[in-house]
């Protein structure tokens, strides 16, 4: 089985006549972390629902590893990590119980866990570093830990396509980095990870593909090609606030460092000619070299 996720001219209309998504087309291959970027009401969650088969497109098709959504669901290929606000954190279940829910689809009618199920759950908990918390009630965890528990559930489900809805809201920057590291290892195993977010700054940090939506898919493809100022402006319209430093006071002797403060979300920074700026050179040596060649330094 070759993993892929393919949507071709998907149109979704709700019973009240509202067309939430029109002619959405994109394709993702195995081993990618893709960002689904758009403003609220742009159809991000509708697209998620369509991928999970909760709404039927009135037009167009979705193929998951060559299968229909229905068949993919039977094979438990698609796992979903809900937004924190959607979960009732006072619900009387432990971390172990939640991760075990990922195995339900694999169990018999009575949902009695086998030794194999227990092994998978325990392994998934270890991978996300939550093994020692397995007896806790889910409400007793921090924001980042909660996210990791639900990621463990997706792993226990052996989901090959993992959908994450706004994973970084209510999570501090250190935990955010830990989650990103985990997502990277999942990508390297060949899974497809689709992250819905409106937090632009974090996208270049960990995504390699981008799907831009605004009632349709405006653009999709590799980060460098799609995540451009012009595309983003089209996707966000007036909702994007920009601060342009026309004649910035930065000098060579500043070591070319700038400090940007923002209250919550990571800022997205473009260089002078519209290329993406990263906050750290390490790991991006090829990019630095490429830019050096371009300017002929």
């Amino acid at each position, binding site marked *: 089985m070759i993993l892929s996720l393919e949507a071709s001219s998907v*149109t979704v*209309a709700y*019973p*009240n*006549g*509202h*067309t939430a998504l029109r002619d959405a087309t994109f394709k993702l291959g195995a081993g990618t972390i893709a960002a689904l970027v758009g403003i609220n009401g742009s159809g991000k969650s509708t697209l998620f629902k369509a991928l999970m088969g909760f709404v039927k497109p*009135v*037009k167009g098709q979705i193929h998951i590893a060559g299968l229909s959504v229905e068949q993919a669901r039977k094979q438990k290929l698609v796992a979903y990590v809900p937004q924190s606000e959607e979960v009732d954190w*006072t619900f009387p279940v432990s971390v172990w119980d939640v991760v075990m829910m990922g195995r339900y689809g694999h169990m018999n009618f009575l949902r009695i866990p086998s030794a194999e199920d227990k092994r998978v759950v325990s392994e998934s908990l270890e991978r996300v570093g939550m093994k020692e918390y397995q007896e806790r009630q889910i409400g007793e965890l921090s924001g980042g830990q909660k996210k990791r528990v639900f990621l463990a559930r997706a792993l226990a489900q052996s989901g090959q396509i993992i959908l994450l809805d706004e994973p970084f809201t209510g999570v501090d920057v250190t935990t955010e980095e830990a989650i990103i590291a985990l997502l990277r290892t999942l990508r390297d195993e060949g899974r497809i990870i689709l992250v819905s977010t409106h937090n632009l700054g974090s996208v270049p940090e960990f995504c390699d593909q981008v799907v831009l939506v605004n009632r349709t898919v405006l653009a999709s493809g590799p980060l460098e090609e799609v995540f451009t100022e012009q595309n983003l402006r089209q996707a966000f319209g007036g909702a994007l606030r920009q601060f342009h430093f026309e004649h910035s006071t930065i000098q060579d002797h500043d070591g070319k460092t700038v400090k940007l403060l923002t209250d919550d979300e990571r800022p997205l920074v473009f260089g002078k000619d519209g290329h993406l700026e990263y906050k750290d050179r390490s790991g991006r040596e090829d990019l630095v070299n490429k830019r050096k060649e371009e300017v002929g330094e």
Partner: protein
Amino acid sequence: MNLLTPLEYDYMLKAILVSGLIGAVCAFLSCFITLKGWSLMGDALSHAVVPGVSLAWLAGLPFSLGAFIAGVIAAITMGWLKRKSGLREDAVIGIVFTSWFALGLLLLSLFPSHLNLKTIILGNILAISDPDILQVVVIAGISILVLALKWRDLLLYCFDEAHARSLGMNTSFLHFLLLALLSATAVAALQTVGACLVVAMLVTPGATAYLLTDRFGRMLGMATAIGAGCSVLGAYLSYFINGSTGGCIVVLQTLVFLLALVFAPKHGLLASRRIRRLAASNLA
């Protein structure tokens, strides 16, 4: 059969007029209740007033006073318990009103009052006594007066509590006022339709009007007309079918609601089907 026969009887005339009055007051209030999402609070309070009836009888007070106080205490208990227990609101409402109601039933089974159990639960407007009519009229008058004076404040409170507070309004007072009005109308409606069906008078006309219009002012007018009309007609019809008056009134209100549900010009089922078909043809 003579269509005017019911009007020849004194008790029928009284029943029809009192039902109409109560129907109008409840319907007026129902616009606020449905918009605020307090429908089940109405149900809960109408059950919670029962022990008050019994205790007031034992203490020799007018039944409406006792019932009103019981309703208000129940409402305060619900608010307090919700804050302290962290349980869901619906669960808290469920616990408190059933306890209160059970207490009322127990008291009534131990100490029968002038209103028997069946009257309180199912209503019996045909046998309403003159002092009780007086109580109902006084409650209705006060409720109408308060609503007429404060309906704009209450509307703002229902629509946007935070904004009302930012304007310097006392929202806890408005909250309490709405609860008190709810209790008072529940008490007034107790004898017409009974504790079990009061919630229909407090919800159905408002919801029907909400389907028919998008303007609050018009919604108030329509709801009141529907509430009063159904009550008068229901009481009148109950003479002919010789059935429960409260039941007739509520069945009638539900029928009007169903008509609105299907045929309402903009929000009805037929209209939304038309809109969907239009949208589908636009897509294709």
